[in-house]
């Protein structure tokens, strides 16, 4: 093998099918801003203390599509992690995925509203993990981006998830399957199954 390498030289690196490469300044620390995907396909910034939309994804249930705008990172094969933490119990629900970030206006790269797979699909409902309603109460959203070179940026925000799809049946289902004490398969009528509206 050594002889072959000496005679023919090292094999060329295979062409990287991901073309975007590094975004920003390699000498600067990586940075991210958190964004949400809404049901209408728009992407909007996440704000400290702000609302986080709960959306029905293809398989059912409700998720928060939490994405990023990043600088000073390798955009290819980045690992995006999104988690919603109940700050009272410390319990958490997590989604982690490898994704190629997409070029954005202004010289950043990140999640695109055209493709939900570029967002962390944080699976929060059915609520069988938190002893509080998921909606209209404060939780902590934790987002981490790690590029394939090991550069890491993290952001943690206090957020208030809300049932964001206004259609009556979807709103009722959301408030039912995201309430505290939800039992899988229980009837979720138009009243949302919320018995007492308590915390």
């Amino acid at each position, binding site marked *: 093998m050594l002889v072959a390498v000496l005679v023919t030289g090292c094999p060329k690196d295979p062409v990287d*099918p*991901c*073309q975007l490469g590094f975004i920003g300044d390699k000498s600067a620390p990586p940075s991210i801003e958190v964004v949400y995907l809404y049901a209408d396909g728009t992407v909007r910034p996440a704000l400290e203390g702000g609302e986080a939309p709960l959306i029905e*994804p*293809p*398989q*059912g*249930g409700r*998720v928060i599509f939490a994405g990023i705008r990043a600088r000073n990172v390798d955009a*290819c*094969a980045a*690992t995006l*992690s999104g*988690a919603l*933490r109940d700050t009272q119990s*410390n*319990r*958490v*629900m*997590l*989604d*982690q*995925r*490898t*994704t*190629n970030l*997409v070029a954005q206006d202004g010289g950043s790269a990140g999640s*695109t509203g*055209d*493709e*939900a*797979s570029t*967002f962390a*699909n944080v*699976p929060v409902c*059915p609520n*069988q*993990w938190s002893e509080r309603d998921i909606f209209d109460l404060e939780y902590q959203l*934790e987002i*981490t981006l790690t590029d394939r070179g090991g550069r890491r940026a993290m952001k943690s925000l206090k957020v208030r998830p809300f049932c964001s799809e206004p259609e009556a049946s979807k709103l009722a289902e959301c408030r039912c*399957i995201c309430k505290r004490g939800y*039992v*899988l*398969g*229980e*009837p*979720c009528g138009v009243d949302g199954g919320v018995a007492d509206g308590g915390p």
Partner: protein
Amino acid sequence: MKRLLNWGVVAAACFAMGCEDDDPANTDVNLEPPPADQGFHFETPAFEVAQGVEQQDCYFFQVPGTPGTPMFLHKFEVKQNVGSHHMNIFRVKTIKGLGPDTSPDRVVKSQNGTGECFKSPNWSDWPLVMNSQTDGLVDWTLPDGVANKFDGGEWLMLQTHYVNALTQTTPFRGKVEVNFWSVPAAQVTAELGTIFATKQSIRVCRANPTPKFSGTCNFGSTNPTTIVGANGHFHSRGKSFDMFQWDGTSTTEPPLADRFYQSSSWDEPPMLRSPQLSKQVPAGSGLFYTCGFQWQEPPRGVTCADIDAADKAKGTPDDQLDCCYTFGGIVEKSEHCNAFVYYYPKSDNVACF
């Protein structure tokens, strides 16, 4: 290909005339039902799966007895003709596009990704009962004192998926039989709980060829829990499926010492079950699972244009098309990352999407 054609001729002849072949690949499975006072039996009719077809059918049937009379199931036997991609049984809950009354013969048949039996939101709140991805017999007796509790008259749905295409073949025809064995209530000390977890919006692309997707699911239990069954499900781009015991609060992959399930086989994944699998985990624990994929060219007869067309139909813009395998039930063109876990004592049947 010649072998496939030969199988096709044999299958057609057998379907018309019946077969007396001892080869399991050419024979319908058969399970002797339990005595009436020890459980019940369900079987699908034999059905043809033509070349190039992915057949997914949802059969509805009821637990014997009257409402208010519980039945405790302690042993499951599942036997399937060769060619099964999966068999899942769920309890019927909220009816959307699929239910016992959808058709008079209590079965909803779907082919090649089209039809209500392929639309997963239809059973999104239906608790898992049992699953098998194994041809032939799966015979599972739960640990002593453990049983899955059902109500008399309760509706169940058996979903069977047979593939007769390029990555999987059905040499004869499809057929599934299941025996549900019961025990007296006095013998039950703990109920069985189940977990069905799936990663959504997965995407395996040429330009992102080795993605990994991870998720969590909490048992929701305030007591120690024992995991007694586990299997993972993905399609042919799937290379590694791992499940770990998880503390319910960490956001990083648990250490290898906490891994209790590992699969690198997409078409015959291991189905770990008691007594071989019996892992006790502390109160508050959950499941952390990961699916690792390797992008590959589509199987013969399928092109990247076909894959892109399916992706585009989901609303993906042209500049994002990249021969990407995305979430879906079609084995040849899409991918899954599903975890099935069985545990006791039950806190609830859990679904994590």
